[in-house]
């Protein structure tokens, strides 16, 4: 399955993808476009990416997780294009035999995704103005 989508993300679909009767704990993280306050109300964010690298880089993250938490199953999806405030931009799910590994693998996936994925966002404010925004420029 592709890591990239241009459609609304369904968190429950990710839960279903990692579900396994041998895996008792599943952690799911979903990141949404925040309405925001710092620069004014955000109407939407336009996400763009280096798509071929994005797929490969997330694949490498998954491979790393599987080598560290051998029984874990991990999936993720990143939406690109214009995403209205309140809608999901990224989701990652990890299932493992027990909850500690599920949380650790899920957390690892999202932290590495934030650090490494070649994705950029332009905030579109309610007054129509736009601004590039990166994960360093404000608390993300």
């Amino acid at each position, binding site marked *: 399955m592709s890591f990239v989508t241009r459609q609304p993300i369904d968190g429950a679909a990710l839960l279903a993808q990692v579900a396994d009767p041998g895996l008792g704990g599943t952690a799911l993280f979903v*990141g949404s476009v925040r309405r925001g306050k710092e620069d004014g109300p955000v109407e939407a964010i336009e996400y*763009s*990416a*280096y798509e*071929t*690298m994005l797929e*490969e*880089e997330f694949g490498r993250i998954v491979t790393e997780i599987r080598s560290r938490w051998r029984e874990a199953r991990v999936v993720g999806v*990143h939406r690109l294009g214009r995403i209205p405030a309140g809608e999901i*931009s*990224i989701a990652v799910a990890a299932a493992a035999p027990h909850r500690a590994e599920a949380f650790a693998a899920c957390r690892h996936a*999202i932290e590495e*995704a*934030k*650090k*490494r*994925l*070649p*994705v*950029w*966002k*332009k905030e579109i404010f309610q007054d129509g103005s736009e601004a*590039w*925004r*990166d*994960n*360093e*420029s404000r608390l*993300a």
Partner: protein
Amino acid sequence: MHFRDALSSSTTVTVTVRAFARYAEILGLEETTLELDEPATVSDAVKLLRSSIPNGSRLPERPLVAINREHVLAETPLQDGDELALLPPLAGG
């Protein structure tokens, strides 16, 4: 002798340069081709871009870069046919 030939300035590498997001806006292009004398590193390519392309000097001296869709450091050597990507500060998620 052969070794010396290979390192002479007559041998070059040609790489495809891709720019994204605000770097694409700054440079006014998303893709270009660059020819460099061998041996050449990512850093050499960035220097050449900054001096030879309009608005190139607005790129940082050490931008985040990828070769063939993997993050690499500025000291990484370039090989003929590489895809060199200039990545603005990341903002995934």
